[in-house]
């Protein structure tokens, strides 16, 4: 089922009664979620993600704007008429009911023609339980199950009515790191099997990147970007999105553009055709740094990109950290936002580097320019960004 949010706005009265102004939780939010997609709704805590989920589920009514499921306007429908399944952060399993009773609970709400015979209800519940692979634990109460198992019961309960839309509110945040990995694969599998349109709220960018078909990045109630995970990473629309995604985070310098050349400090580092002169904010992904030595770029022998002659800048090398596959170079630079930056390079490139000065060339495909005032992206003409 396709979900369309059309200029959706939700205001709350301020909790602090002295402040008259409403809190705008969702601000003119417009997005179209294609049918059968798993989309990750990503943003820092308090950005309005959960409010979006409550609006889509019908637990809250928008102040203005409309919500469509396919062509059906559901804005004023109560939750039960919308055909949505919702999984809560704390699962909200009824503690006094067994797993089976919990899963059957929504079916028991059906009245009139919709009401199913008892054995049909049971069959549906077992079917849902099989889908999430907890059919062996149906007699257990929530307190007798692990967090991951409770999570599956919650998903089964949300799916048992065969909803058109599945909503997951921070579903992994209460699990430990190992279980989180397994469960997110599981959610992906269940979504693939059911082909149900799924909205997945998270503040963890790695989680969103790993399983979503599309990522919606939001902040302060506003939509910033909707795109495929790799596109959001590679092609952020603004500095916020660039900073929010990626571990280690993007390195941010302040630079200047003069006559088509980007300067960090006073050293030219990149050709930036089509960008007007002036101050810019430069974001460089950790993998966008290439250490260069006096004799030329150290990775010249590798195929692909070769740094241009004379385009590099000097940084103070603080230390080299070896972490298994990757080696990171921790460095400082006067124009850097923050005390230290981090570059990830191949192990052999880092060999022989000593604390002192290191020169970096920048890969154009990993370097992005932003307006220092608005944070908006400044595009570089031609194929320089590819």
């Amino acid at each position, binding site marked *: 089922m396709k979900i369309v949010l059309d200029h959706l706005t939700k205001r709350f009265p301020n909790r602090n009664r002295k402040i008259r102004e409403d809190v705008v939780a969702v601000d003119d939010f417009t997005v179209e979620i294609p049918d059968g997609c798993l989309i990750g709704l990503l943003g820092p805590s308090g950005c309005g993600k959960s409010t979006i989920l409550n609006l889509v589920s019908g637990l809250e009514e928008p102040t203005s704007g409309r919500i469509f499921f396919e062509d059906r306007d559901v804005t004023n429908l109560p*939750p039960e008429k919308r055909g949505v399944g919702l999984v809560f952060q704390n699962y909200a399993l009824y503690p006094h009911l067994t797993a089976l009773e919990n899963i059957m609970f929504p079916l028991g709400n059906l009245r009139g023609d919709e009401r199913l015979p008892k054995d049909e209800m049971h069959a549906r519940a077992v079917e849902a339980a099989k889908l999430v692979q907890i059919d062996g634990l149906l007699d257990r109460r929530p307190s007798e199950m692990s967090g991951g198992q409770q999570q599956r019961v919650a998903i089964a309960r949300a799916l048992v009515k065969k909803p058109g839309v599945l909503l997951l509110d921070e579903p992994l945040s209460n699990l430990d790191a190992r279980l989180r990995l397994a469960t997110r694969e599981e959610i992906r599998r269940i979504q693939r099997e059911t082909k149900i349109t799924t909205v997945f709220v998270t503040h963890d960018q790695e989680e969103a990147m790993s399983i979503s078909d599309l990522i919606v990045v939001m902040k302060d109630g506003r939509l910033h970007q909707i795109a495929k995970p790799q596109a959001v990473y590679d092609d952020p629309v603004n500095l916020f999105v660039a900073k929010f995604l990626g571990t280690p985070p993007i390195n941010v310098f302040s630079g200047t553009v003069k006559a088509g050349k980007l300067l960090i400090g006073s050293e030219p580092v990149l050709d930036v055709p089509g960008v007007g002169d002036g101050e810019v904010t430069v974001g460089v992904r950790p993998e966008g740094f290439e250490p260069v030595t006096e004799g030329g770029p150290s990775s010249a022998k590798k195929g692909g990109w070769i740094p241009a002659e004379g385009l590099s800048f000097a940084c103070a090398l603080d230390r080299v950290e070896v972490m298994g596959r990757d080696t990171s170079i921790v460095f400082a630079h006067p124009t850097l936002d923050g005390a230290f930056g981090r570059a990830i390079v191949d192990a052999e490139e880092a060999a022989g580097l000593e604390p002192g000065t290191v020169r970096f060339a920048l890969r154009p495909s990993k370097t992005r320019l932003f307006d220092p005032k608005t944070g908006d992206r400044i595009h570089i003409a031609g194929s320089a960004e590819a």
Partner: protein
Amino acid sequence: MKKQNLKAWLYLLPAAAFLAVFMIYPLIDVVVYSLEEGYNSASQSYFGVGLYNFSYVLRDPYFLQALKNTLILVVITVPVSTTLALLISLALHSVKALKSFFQTVYFLPYVTNTLAVGLVFMILFKKTAYSEGLVNLLIGFFGGPSVDFIDGPYWAKMLVMCIYTVWVVMPFKILILTGALASVNPEYYKAARVDGTPKARIFFRITLPLISPMIFYLVITGFIGAFKAYSDAVALFGVDLNAAGMNTIVGYVYDMLYGNSGGYPSYASAAALVLFAIVFTITCVNLLIRRKNVVN
């Protein structure tokens, strides 16, 4: 280690001493008293050991009257007050405006002197030479017959007693139940709403089971409390409860011990032990039922 031991006992000494003298010793003593036949408090002598005291008490019409009164009181007030408190707590839970004002008002009877307010109740229900009493005027206004609730027929006296008992126990129950309702995770209600659960089903299938431990707690404490009823009766009907036919088991114990009909600690002990046995049995039965029906 030895020194530490000694010091600890020093800290415990006052509590242990008081408990030994005023709890443990009396506990043994009450059993001894109850078995001493023909105990004379003047000469402090007795002439036999046996169960005569119990059989005397169980055949004493005053005790049987007190037992009957207490049982009626328990059977009526515990369900009525618990249900009413649940209704009021649900109402309280569902509103925002004036909530804390209502909570404060509802709790007021808890801190007031049972005897003092009982006197006001008596005046409201009593017929005097000058006035029918406010309640009777109210009944008359609706066309009912006037009844003397304080010195009149048994059922009328019982009714006042029940009304006053409910009035007295409500603050505690409302407090506990509003607390229980507030502690239900609101996500359960959200989940139920997404599934379109009807209000009645939410109440019976979610709310009620989740607060059932607290309801059981209230029922048990309510049983125990109602079995120990005494000062409410005194407030309404005066010290001579036997004459009013409104005595309670606890009242019977005290009357046997002290006052015009007093001086029989053996009978008092036997009656007290009978009360304890009843309360203990009911508590155990309650706990058994609870274990079967309630999950935590």
